[in-house]
């Protein structure tokens, strides 16, 4: 137990250092960005008609004139006190913007994460167990095809098929257009999330399926499976008793590593479907030079991805007897 706490503590310290690094990197990239916040957000034409005084006020608002280090330290100081600042674009506290968008995205991502994880695992097991057979070749072909398809392109194809031709699903946004917020039903929300979630799920499958397949093949070639066969265990029993048990550990790693890919994918997918989630907001913040918002999003997503890895590590300790018992005796 003590060992486990120490382990978790070390990981958390690592996480803090990592978040610091990530926020600094994001900040430096933003400072180096060639986009002029005034031109992008106010517009060339409008700027031309303004007085110098107005322009100075705007420059102050967008923080153009402060030295970068001072701005970063200022942001960091507020952040430590739990204040992520105010979004320049949305004119709301960053926490609020992120909270709202994350809520939209979270369902989408959670669904895609679980669905692609389970489907990937199932397909990988199926392919690995029938290595070289028809099923294996079909699954492998499918995985290679999907993983070589750009996400946005896949999103467009689904959009065309389901929203434009079949007209069974809405083409974008999170809620129907022209309906007031109170009368939006859960069904509406689900219908709007289906296409983005599906796209995200489909693109997440190949990685998990192909890796699971490799692992299962290694396991089926192991000495202990050989011995199980020598003792007359049937292939189905071997798969259930030894295959699943030993594939569980790498599957945990894969599944939690997939969180970062789902985050990455959501940026593109939400853009294509105009889905007001975290990914789309990140794009807006980046292009609109909304420094506090972008830093907030970066830190929050990094924290979520890192927590995923931490959970994977902790689960490992529960599932793997070599760690569980080894730690207990140490």
């Amino acid at each position: 137990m003590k060992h486990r706490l120490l382990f978790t503590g070390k990981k958390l310290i690592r996480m803090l250092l990592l978040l610091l690094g990530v926020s600094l990197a994001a900040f430096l990239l933003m400072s180096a960005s060639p986009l002029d916040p005034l031109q992008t957000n106010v517009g060339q034409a409008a700027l031309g008609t303004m007085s110098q005084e107005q322009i100075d006020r705007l420059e102050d608002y967008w923080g153009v004139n402060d030295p970068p280090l001072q701005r970063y330290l200022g942001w960091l100081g507020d952040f430590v006190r739990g204040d992520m600042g105010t979004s320049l674009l949305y004119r709301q506290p960053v926490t609020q913007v992120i909270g709202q968008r994350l809520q939209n995205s979270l369902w989408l991502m959670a669904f895609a994460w679980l669905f692609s994880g389970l489907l990937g695992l199932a397909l990988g097991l199926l392919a690995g167990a029938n290595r070289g057979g028809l099923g294996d070749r079909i699954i492998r072909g499918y995985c290679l095809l999907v993983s070589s398809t750009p996400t946005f392109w896949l999103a467009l194809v689904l959009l065309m098929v389901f929203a434009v031709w079949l007209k069974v699903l809405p083409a974008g946004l999170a809620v129907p257009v022209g309906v007031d917020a109170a009368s939006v039903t859960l069904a509406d929300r689900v219908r709007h999330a289906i296409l983005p979630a599906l796209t995200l799920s489909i693109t997440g499958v190949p990685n998990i399926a192909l890796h699971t397949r490799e692992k299962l093949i290694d396991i089926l070639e192991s000495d202990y499976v050989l011995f199980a066969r020598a003792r007359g265990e049937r292939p189905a029993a071997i798969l259930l008793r030894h295959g699943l048990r030993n594939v569980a550990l790498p599957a945990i790693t894969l599944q939690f590593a997939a969180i970062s890919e789902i985050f990455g994918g959501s940026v593109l997918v939400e853009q294509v479907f105009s889905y007001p989630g975290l990914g789309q907001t990140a794009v807006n913040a980046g292009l609109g030079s909304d420094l506090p918002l972008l830093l907030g999003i970066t830190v929050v997503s990094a924290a979520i991805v890192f927590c995923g890895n931490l959970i994977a590590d902790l689960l490992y300790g529960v599932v793997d007897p070599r760690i569980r018992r080894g730690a207990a005796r140490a």
Partner: protein
Amino acid sequence: METILQVRDLSISFTQYDRGTRRRELPVIRRLSLTVEAGQVVAVVGSSGSGKSLLAHGILGILPYNSRMEGEIRYRGQPLTPRRAEKLRGREIVLVPQGVTYLDPLMQVGPQLRMGRRDARARGESRRVLERYGLGPETERRYPFELSGGMARRVLIAAAAMQSPRLLIADEPTPGLDARAAGRILGHFRELAQEGAGVLLITHDLALALTVAHQVAVFYAGETVEVASAADFPAGRLRHPYTRALWNALPQNGFTPMPGAQPGPGEEGTGCPFAPRCPRRGPECAEEIPLRPLAGGLVRCLRPEGGDGL
């Protein structure tokens, strides 16, 4: 007496792809023959890499994916087809594998021994069989990584003893055991044979083989070079120069080392693979050499010991 196992001219080869797409057959076992009668312990003696484990796996029909097996294997008079082997293994034909890696690393010993059976009878059986090899009931809840080498070895043997074999194939069953434990296990093999089973004991240790075996088959580079009865050794009735060299290399016989090394798979030329190291070689040794009967045993040599003038 019933013949339990008869292996004739067995070859096992691997398909390999070297650099890119060139396919290559890599022969590992060639022209291997041996017989196990009911009631007999037959030892297969050969140095590391001579194909002993593959022979065991070949008999059980559990060779890897990229391998090919040719030749004849008969079990109790009938050809041992892959389908028949599948039915018999774990029931009549039982393997004691070579190492701890043959235990599932994430499964406790007890469930592993019981192979999915949960009933009280299975529990009783696994407990008894562990006890027989000096392992307490707490062993059942251990994972393989929590076993010492010798304990793991005994668990593997216990797994075989859970089943009641007519043919037991033991692949190096004794390393890691102290002399007493090893003696007990070899004694158990002998008991099995006395009850009418056949035992194929695979080992690199000729001295150990001679303590328990009735017959000894000597392997060299994937071939059977000699089959002799255990009594032939102390009596000096050896046939093949390699067998002689193995015998002379034993501590009690002067520890005479053998120069050179066994050729690896695919490195053997034509003819006798032992010829390059053989003191008795002649020009005819570069030809195909048949395994032939000699003085109550078998030998694959054109100039066997004690065979001058044959």
